[in-house]
């Protein structure tokens, strides 16, 4: 079977439309996972008992398949009368699953901050909340920009899982087209190229953030 360029171009508009959903889900999930993961890590550091509890919670989140979590939330929540749109469930699932990994990344990033920073903040009378927001978070982000970017790309690449709960994301829509025409190469190729482009954009954005955060280290 020949690769039909004209046909590939025909599929572009439809797949691009689905790409909008993919981008939306990915961006929202990156934010959600980062916020949740940071919350887990701050909770983990808030006391001896919490450190054991959160260790366990974070391990549980990371040690169950993301597909199992997606099915579980999608099919089990309605049983308790909670009905959420598939899109929202998808964002919740990816945020939740990756929050476990990001918590680990944040842990490493916070461990790298010199102990004297927290002491200086205390001596200046900064509250815990202000210390987290203005001292810990910015230095942490600077320490972990690269692995954080990798996980953002992973989140993007995990969006096709949401096809199982009928979220109209990009890969699923490419497969839908393929199923109608029995031509797989073109739509799959188009969606792969778009994924590649999006991953590139993410890594560029993260690199830019890293440069901005590193500005203070230049002499």
């Amino acid at each position, binding site marked *: 079977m020949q690769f039909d360029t004209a046909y590939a171009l025909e599929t572009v508009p439809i797949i691009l439309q689905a790409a909008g959903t993919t981008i939306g889900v990915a961006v929202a999930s990156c934010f959600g996972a980062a916020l949740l993961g940071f919350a887990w890590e701050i909770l983990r550091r808030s006391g001896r008992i919490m450190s054991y509890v959160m260790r366990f919670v974070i391990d549980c989140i990371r040690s169950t398949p993301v597909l199992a979590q997606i099915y579980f939330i999608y099919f089990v929540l309605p049983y308790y009368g909670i009905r959420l749109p598939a899109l929202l469930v998808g964002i919740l699932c990816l945020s939740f699953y990756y929050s476990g990994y990001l918590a680990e990344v944040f842990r490493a990033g916070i461990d790298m901050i*010199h102990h*004297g*920073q927290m*002491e*200086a903040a*205390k*001596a*200046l*009378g*900064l*509250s815990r909340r*202000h210390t987290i927001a*203005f*001292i810990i978070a*910015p*230095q942490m982000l*600077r320490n972990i920009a690269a692995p954080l970017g990798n996980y953002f790309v992973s989140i993007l690449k995990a969006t096709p899982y949401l096809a199982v709960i009928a979220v109209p994301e990009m890969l699923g829509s490419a497969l839908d087209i393929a199923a109608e025409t029995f031509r797989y190469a073109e739509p799959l190729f188009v969606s792969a190229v778009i994924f590649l482009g999006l991953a590139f954009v993410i890594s560029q954005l993260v690199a830019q953030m890293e440069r901005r*955060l590193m*500005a*203070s*280290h*230049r*002499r």
Partner: protein
Amino acid sequence: MAGDPAVQFVAVDKWYGSFQVLRGIDLSVGRGERIVICGPSGSGKSTLIRCINGLERHGAGRILVNGTEITGQSRTIHALRQDVGMVFQHFNLFPHLTVIGNCTLALTKSRKIGGKEARDIAMHYLARVRIPEQADKYPAQLSGGQQQRVAIARALCLNPKIMLFDEPTSALDPEMIREVLDVMVSLAQDGMTMLCVTHEMGFAKTVADRVVFMDQGLIVEQAPPEDFFANPREERSRHFLRQLLN
């Protein structure tokens, strides 16, 4: 209140596990008094001054700052830190903030002072430590001596009644020690209550009202600098001074 000592230790003990770092510390520091604390490494000097702003909790005994006892309650610790500034051996400037950002952070966030006013306050104290022209640089762009002067300005911005210094010049190259000590001398001359852990004997002789010598968690001897350096009473003090001079 007005008559209370700035800092008072009454029979203070502290342990790290089974190791006793502070042993029955009694120390009273009057308002405007300048104390230099010296002693061998590991004698508990840092621990002693870190108890004054609650960076360490003491075990037994009482510590009063401006007449208020330090308890475990976070409210009193917070109030305490409003009155006590601290300068560290390794500066501990915030590397991701500019010099002015370091100075204004607590003013704008904790004290809720407006940006313009906070900046004016910060510039005032940066002028005081003689580096107003560095305001928009990052700490990594400054020399050690300049960084330590920023750290002093940052503490002064909060208008503390008491200043604690923990070996402020120990991490500095010799040629930068002078510029930091000069700032500290001028601060002393303005009547700031100061407790300085330092082995700078020249500084102690110039500004200290009293030298406190510690060894193994005990205050071994305290005396005015002219007496302490000329006629130390205790053998341990003599031994320490001999080592310092060599």
